[in-house]
């Protein structure tokens, strides 16, 4: 199983799409590692620098609704994976992106909008860390002088994929 948790990168906008996460022109790369420098290259947000320290240090992304919409490219989870970001927390996800995350043994965690509002208002513009317990379904945010724990649910299948480290070995054994 992968490890989850660490410094947070806040992306305070809904509908962040896969072209913003990894532009199509890099889909000609044959290895995941080659994608590394291009993370979130086309995302334009106030105060956000795709090449900045916050992006480099991040282990968790916290964002808003419909994260990962657009293309089916698994390059989107991969560019996070090779940058050591293994979890994305958002109000909701586009279906293909969400399943790609779990298929890679990574976590796409949904929180209610009210919980995300709290997280953003306490720490959205500060340094924050997130600890995540997949088994227990809890995450704890520390930042802005506040520590707060939230509960989340992921489906039993998605949890099995995270524990197994991905879908390919699981499926080859069972089907």
């Amino acid at each position, binding site marked *: 199983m992968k490890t989850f948790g660490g410094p947070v990168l806040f992306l305070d906008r809904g*509908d962040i*799409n896969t*072209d*913003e996460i990894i*532009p*199509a*022109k890099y*889909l*000609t*790369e*044959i290895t*995941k590692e080659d994608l590394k420098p291009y993370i979130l290259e*086309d995302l*334009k947000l106030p105060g956000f620098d795709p090449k900045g320290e916050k992006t480099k240090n991040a282990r968790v992304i916290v964002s808003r*609704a*419909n994260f990962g*919409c*657009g*293309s*089916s*490219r*698994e390059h989107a*989870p991969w560019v996070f994976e090779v940058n050591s970001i293994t979890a994305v927390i958002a109000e*909701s*996800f*586009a*279906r*293909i992106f969400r*399943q*790609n995350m779990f*298929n*890679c043994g990574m976590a796409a965690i949904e929180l209610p909008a009210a919980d995300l509002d709290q997280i953003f208002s306490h720490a959205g513009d500060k340094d924050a860390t997130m600890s995540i317990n997949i088994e227990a379904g809890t995450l704890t945010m520390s930042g802005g002088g506040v520590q707060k724990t939230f509960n989340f649910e992921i*489906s*039993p*299948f998605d949890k*099995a994929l995270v524990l197994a480290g*991905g*879908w*390919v*070995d699981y*499926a*080859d054994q*069972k*089907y």
Partner: protein
Amino acid sequence: MGKTTAEKIFDAHLVNEPFPGTKVLRLDAVLCHEITTPIAIDDLIRRDKDRVFDPTKIKAVIDHVTPSKDTKTATQAKILRDWARRHDIKDFFDIGANGVCHALFPERGFIRPGYTVIMGDSHTCTHGAFGAYAAGIGTTDLEVGILKGVCAFRQPKTIKFNVTGTLPKGVYAKDVILHIIGKIGVNGATDRVMEFHGAVVDAMTMESRMTLCNMAIEAGGTSGICQPDMTTVEYLWPFIQDEFTSKEAALTDYSQWRADVDAEYDQTIEIDVTKLEPTITFGYKPDQVKTVSELTGTRLDQIYIGSCTNGRIEDLRIAAQILKGHKLAPNVRGILSPATPKIQQQAIHEGLIDIFMEAGFCVTNPTCGACLGMSNGVLAEGEVCASTTNRNFMGRMGKGGMVHLMSPATAAASAIEGKIADPRKYL
């Protein structure tokens, strides 16, 4: 209680339910292209699992960047080509026979009512036009599909769209789907199937139905689905005439996949198209739409006609009808990419290519081309394109470029005037 089309297909393809709410389905078609498949192939080789579940159910094409533009894209094409040969995948389409996957595979009769279809491409939802459940998936799901012929899905809920009224002059399937996306938003159908009903859809050609279903993903939908009927049978007849004694027999068989009248829907949305105007996107999300009247005169640099949304023969016919006898305005350039070689050849026979070329269009080979800014037709920073494609994300057609999504008719009228223009006055 009756069932939706997707529910019927799920029941007929269920392998098991490993966890509550997760259903593993048997697949009828696994479609592959050279952008998302080579990494799956590479991973299967590294895992010592370089196998395919059934070479007759796997279809592959090189379409996104073709002919290859550099060493990297040539390598992607080579990996797919070598793999298809190694596993005796007969339905592999290389340069000369290749075209945009979501136009080429239906044209070859590979998609049938009741099928389960996956592809590592978000616009796989297009194939639901045939009454199939067709979903875009990522590379790992594709890998498992290739290896085992199965895919896991959540039981989908279905939104029924009842499209009624009369399509006005100059308004097409593209305008209808842009209008629907504008109405429900870019995540209005996330984890939902979009099932299209109503007299307007019943009267549509298969090409128009494919345009409609193609953009289901732009509202977050898993699959668009149209109800199989005689139009479906007529389209497929050249491929199925040995399977059925008559078209009526085929229709009877395919009708098993039609939604029951008492099927239960997550939501039913009524769309009356009678007063619909040509519809165009204005921002960087497909749900940001306005009518042509609101956007007339908007500055343009490039016109692009093609793609899995609108690169089919009827799209070329409509655009050519408007372009005939006209020239591109001097401030814009035009690119036409017919979606498949068959469409291109047909367009040559019908004299459509002459019309485009006389208007000043560049005609490329069939390819995904400018749509995703990977090969030809890329925009420079600050440039604006009137495009018949399906996605207007920032940077989609080139860093700093902007795309207005519209129908082929609106794109053709805009080509003549060099700015966004109303197609209705040319019809």
